């Protein structure tokens, strides 16, 4: 065990899913920051976050269409990431402990969540950026 304090262990929002269902649940867990049920978080934060997520998506589309500069999309992405940290701390306050294929989760501190969200969004942003650039839809 890499954690001394077992009280830090957490159960992910998707419970005990296995196989392909587990992979799908993992994917949803990374892409969908809002919790459900008891872990759903505050409605106001949920609504604000949902609004910003829509705005960030629109910003990506506008950028792809050449109406926004790369600086603007980076700004949007950063803003969205900041909000995602709070949304997740509210609704899905855990991060994985150990290998990505494992099932051990721990309570996320603010720093854990900052690292998780920034790194995850950096990867998503880089993938989107490189895909759009490869398709010739984004120019710098």
């Amino acid at each position, binding site marked *: *065990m890499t954690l001394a304090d077992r009280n*830090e262990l957490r159960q992910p929002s998707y419970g005990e899913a296995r196989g392909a269902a587990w992979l799908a649940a993992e994917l949803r867990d990374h892409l969908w920051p809002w919790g459900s049920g008891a872990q759903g978080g505050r409605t106001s934060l949920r609504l604000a976050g949902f609004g910003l997520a829509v705005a960030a998506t629109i910003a990506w589309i506008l950028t792809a269409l*050449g109406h926004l500069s*790369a600086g603007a999309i980076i700004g949007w992405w950063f803003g969205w990431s900041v909000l995602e940290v709070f949304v997740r701390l509210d609704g899905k306050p855990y991060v994985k402990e150990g290998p990505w294929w494992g099932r051990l989760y721990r309570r996320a501190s603010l720093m854990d969540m900052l*690292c*998780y969200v920034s*790194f995850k969004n950096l990867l998503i942003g880089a993938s989107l950026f*490189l895909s759009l650039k490869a398709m*010739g839809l984004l*120019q710098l």
Partner: protein
Amino acid sequence: MFSQRTLRRLLAPLAALLLTSAAHADTYEIKLPPELSSSPRLCDYAPCSEVLPGATSFSERKGQPSYVEGYRDDAGQKTKVGYVMLSTDITDIPAYSGKPVVTLIGMDTAGKFTGVKILKHSEPILLLGIPESSLVKFNNQYLGQFVGDNIEIGKSRPEENLIGLDAITGATVTVIAQNQVMMTSGTEVAKQVGILKPVIRPQARFPISDAAPSWANLVADGSVQHLVVKPEDLGLKGDGRPYMDLWFGYLNQPTIGRALLGKDGYASLMARLKEGEHAIFIIRTAGMDSFKGSGFVRGGIYDRVQVRQDKDSFTFRDLDYVNLWGLAAAGAPAYDESAIFIIRGKGFSAAYPWKLVFLGNRIDKETAAKTFANFDREYWLADSYLEGGRPEVIKPDPTWLKVWKDKALQIGAFIVLLLGVAAAYANRDRLVRRSSHKNKWRVNAFKYTGWLLSIGFVGFQAMAQPSITQVLTWFHSLLFQWQWELFLSDPLIFIFWIFIIVTVFVWGRGLFCGWLCPFGSLSELLYKLGRACGLKRFQFHLPQALHDRLKGLKYAIFFGLLAVSFFSMGLAEKLAEIEPFKTTFLVGLLNRSWPYTLFAGGLLGLSIFTERPFCKYLCPLGAALAMPTTFRWFGLKRKDECTKCKACAKGCGSLAIDTKGNIDQRECMLCLDCMVLYYDDHACPPLAQERKRRDKAGQPLTPIDARGYFIPIHPAPARSATEEKHS
């Protein structure tokens, strides 16, 4: 609105204030007049006479790629003394920053370099770390050298006719790129003006065949090639169309020529060609511009396309153009621009590979300045179209491969070091089990060896200290122009980064930061030496609460640098001087101005009294690596008792164990002290307690299991007298 300009305005004076003693960087990111790259009168905008001493007047730009002639005034008579060329007119080889070093080069009529002047560069290392004068000194090594000589970075090898140039320590990639720029530029002009003669290659002979391949067959066997240039490649806005979509092929080969032009067309074309002349066709199937060039005039040259074979290039004039009336091959695509060009150079041979080159201009969006950019596609007739098949062609190694070969021994030693440290760490369980809190040499022997080698060999000798500037440079290259060759040119850094990325995800940042970072190793070694020298009573750790607050500073520095890099890479590179790595390893503590020396020396001095102050609180690279460490696969072990017991936490030099006994993996340097305690039945309180209990009870001490506890003793049920008897 907090605009980009506002941010620049605020940050620029701040950086200037911080860096008042920075080396004076005259040409770093300087704004050059746009006419420099476009005006026929190059020397009205560039100091040509400085690179061609004795020349008093200069011609307009001429040739393809362009150069100017310089003349001396001999009693009213103009005498040609040499040539001046602007590197960006000729080649687009980028330096470490991903942008070219704009260089003005002078060469006399005998082909010897007479002067080199840097007009603009974007090299961060030359901005602060290494004085720009080093690049000037490097360039001065070319003066008097003949353009046709074999000049490379490294030691001279007279037996191979190789002239070696001294590199700039710590800027290897920059000078390798600069050498390519110098030699490519000089060679291109020397060939045009007749100083260097073209290589005469044996001509191809073609087998007789009645085959009539279709367009698809010709494409499949490589007889017709495709060259596509995207608008983004030239800094233009895209609308889904390619900027240039060209198909081309060699027409002299009878099977191919007849298939493409029809029998009559082929016969007619061949009748026009003299011996040693060759024809190629080009069609444009889509695109935003003409491949013939909009500025073409009668008697001029086609400045958008040329053919290159090895180091020889062949351009086309109006007399080299023949109309292409149609393509006979079945399935040939529709096209809206076409040409047949005749290659008249004696050196061309279809038996050897050649390239069609599209010459473009890349536009810088910020400055609107144009820089030369070329795009090429190789063409080589298939074996079946050549009598006797393709001749053997030995292609010279690319520059990066030469560097790898030259440094093979160093690279080998470095890989052994990395694998050795990784193997030692992978076997940590065995090592810590054989150690005790009083005798940790089995672990420390590996760790200290790693430190000494990383300081001496990696840091001072190979100068392969990873830095946040590399992360920022990669980020920039990813955005603008990624070139593997550029990063492969510095093999040790390249290998180090692969190792770092892999080990961060497997074990966390600690293996690099704690065992292999040259500066980190030096820092902790000083702390250990201080202790050994009797300074222990002066050594201290910050209170945990203060440490917990200060450790966030390095993340703020990292995010600050990342944010600034979006607006100004140059400013980010300047601010990255918070890393004392350049001062310590690349340039040397005594070779820099006093603020840098004071800063680096101060940090190292402080390291004697407190463990790794820079790594804990300031290192942006450490912060960048700490973030993915959150997701490392394999962490250190903890027991349930660790929540209450503070034994490990008390001895943790990294202050990485919190009040609940959990290890903050982002801060952990993987020193393994806590793991030694974990298995030490004289030091780990729960283990020691159990050991004492068993000793008292007369029970044996069973081995310690992977969870860090003695294997429990399960008393076997006593056997009955009957069973005893039977056995």
